[in-house]
């Protein structure tokens, strides 16, 4: 398998873990300095002093995952379910240690009688750590970020 194919498989695998709600396994794919980012405006630079729908480090992602295990996670009783539908990732290799990928996606999240449909492009920044791929950054450019949004409860 080429390096590019390896990265593509990884991106698909990550989405599959989220759809199967294997959140602890997903968390293990993240570096300790991970950034999980969903900007609020278009072309938002990280140094802009502007809000984001998500700008989360590993602690905040752990909070989301641990919260889902709480008996009092009222908004998830009953739980939501999600499905990522990914387009083929475009991969750029930077040396043999770092990779960037760009993956257009459709994301469905269902909760009881309601299903929401979101779409956009997800950008991964991946690094080789002891021979394994890890996510250092995941930036989600949501298509309808200006819209009035309903609750988005799981991980895009």
């Amino acid at each position, binding site marked *: 398998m080429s390096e590019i194919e390896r990265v593509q498989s990884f991106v698909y695998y990550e989405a599959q873990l989220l759809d199967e709600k294997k959140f602890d396994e997903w968390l293990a794919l993240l570096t300790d300095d991970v950034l999980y980012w969903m900007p609020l405006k278009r072309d938002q630079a990280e140094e802009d*002093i502007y*809000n984001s729908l998500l700008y989360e480090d590993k602690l905040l992602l752990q909070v989301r995952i641990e919260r889902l295990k*709480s008996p009092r996670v009222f908004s998830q009783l009953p739980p939501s379910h999600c499905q990522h539908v990914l387009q083929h990732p475009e991969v750029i290799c930077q040396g043999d240690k770092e990779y960037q990928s760009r993956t257009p996606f459709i994301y469905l999240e269902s909760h009881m009688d309601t299903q929401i449909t979101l779409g956009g492009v997800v950008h991964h920044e991946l690094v080789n750590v002891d021979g394994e791929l890890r996510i250092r950054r995941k930036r989600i450019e949501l298509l309808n970020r200006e819209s009035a949004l309903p609750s988005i409860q799981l991980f895009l």
Partner: protein
Amino acid sequence: MTASTTRFANPADVTALVRDDEVHKDVYIDADVFQLEMDHLWPSTWIFLGHDSQIPMPGDFMTADIAAEPLIMLRDKDGCVVVVKNRCAHKGAKLVSALSGKLSSNLRCPYHGWTFRLDGSLRSIPEPKGYAGSKYDLLASDRTTADKSIGLSRVKNVEIYRGFVFVKLSDAGLGFHEFFGDSLSSIDNMADRSPEGRLEVVGGTFRYMHNCNWKMFVENLNDTMHPMVAHHSSAGTVKKLWYADHDKTDVKPMVVEQFEPFVSNYKFFDDMGVKIFPNGHSYTGVNFSIHSAYSAIPGYHDSLVNAYGKEKAENILATNRHNTVYYPSLTIKGAIQTLRIARPIAHDKTLLESWTLRLVGASDEHLKRTLMYSRLINAPTSVVGHDDLHCYRAIQEGLASSDNEWVSLHRRYDESERIDISGEYKGNSEVSMRGQFRAWRERIVASMQAQAS
């Protein structure tokens, strides 16, 4: 305002919905009650529209709907804030659809090209001869036939308080200062936290659609007994994860500082206190609040002392109110510089907007803290917001039950309570909600009576 064709024909039908210590469920779930509110409560009270920092230059505009009335707030060529209805004088098209932007010197209708000056007056019509003799006759030399009032309707009742722009759509109701009274001290405290006494709306808006009645959100802002229950799964988890490998003396990251107080105990929130004002306004956090223990930002204290002197600066910083409700539309957090605005759409649909403000003259660290708070607590992606909305929705659905037509506001109710005047109460009292419904009843009835006479 056109009289609505609801089942609420006279004031007695309205007063029957509100008792001293409970309200009828229809105030949340009935479409006719919603129409009543949109016909009488919202037009006759001062509703928050925007902040003048959003339109700094001539031609800058922002739009919003208030009680289904599409409005444009703009800065005219003289630098004044003008509010006009977003409805062309010709066929009624909205002139601008964007939430904000910049106009050239005119407003131009996208349909037939009628143009209006920034003060709303009609400037030009293509093929004006076609209107000879009509009230739209711009060519008449003496303009006798042309009605000078033709143009975009201007909202007359506009008040700007420290940059906060409020409108009252009808002539019924109280004057601005009579309506808000001393509750304006919360806006003062937020603005005074800037060494220059000025605020700027920056950082983007969260637009979070709630499938619930607007009042559930507004009431929740001074409900001190839900955080430790509804937010246990979020704030409690932050606390659990942090203290698993840290102790009380460790310096906490901002995330922990912001989440941890949500799961304070009942005594904490009770001791925090609530203050009510006439006309439904109130704030929690009379003595301290969930925002009191934030770390100091270096240099800030000194900049306020330089600006205001030691005594005033320390008074400003010692005021850490929790949520102030400017009934019915606006809720603010002065201590962390956020706004949440209710934009009701239907009896079971409310757009909630969350805005962030910069303290002009203070460091970016303040704004970063503000943005983090708004993101963690108010965004459509917030684990705190999810549980709040879940509860509001659960009420919306649960009240369909025929079991009990009345919704309780009994907590710490006392027959001698004077909700018609300002007063301080223990934080866990539901007095703020009783005050809101008293104002709800009074304002609707007064507007109905004004319309009838």
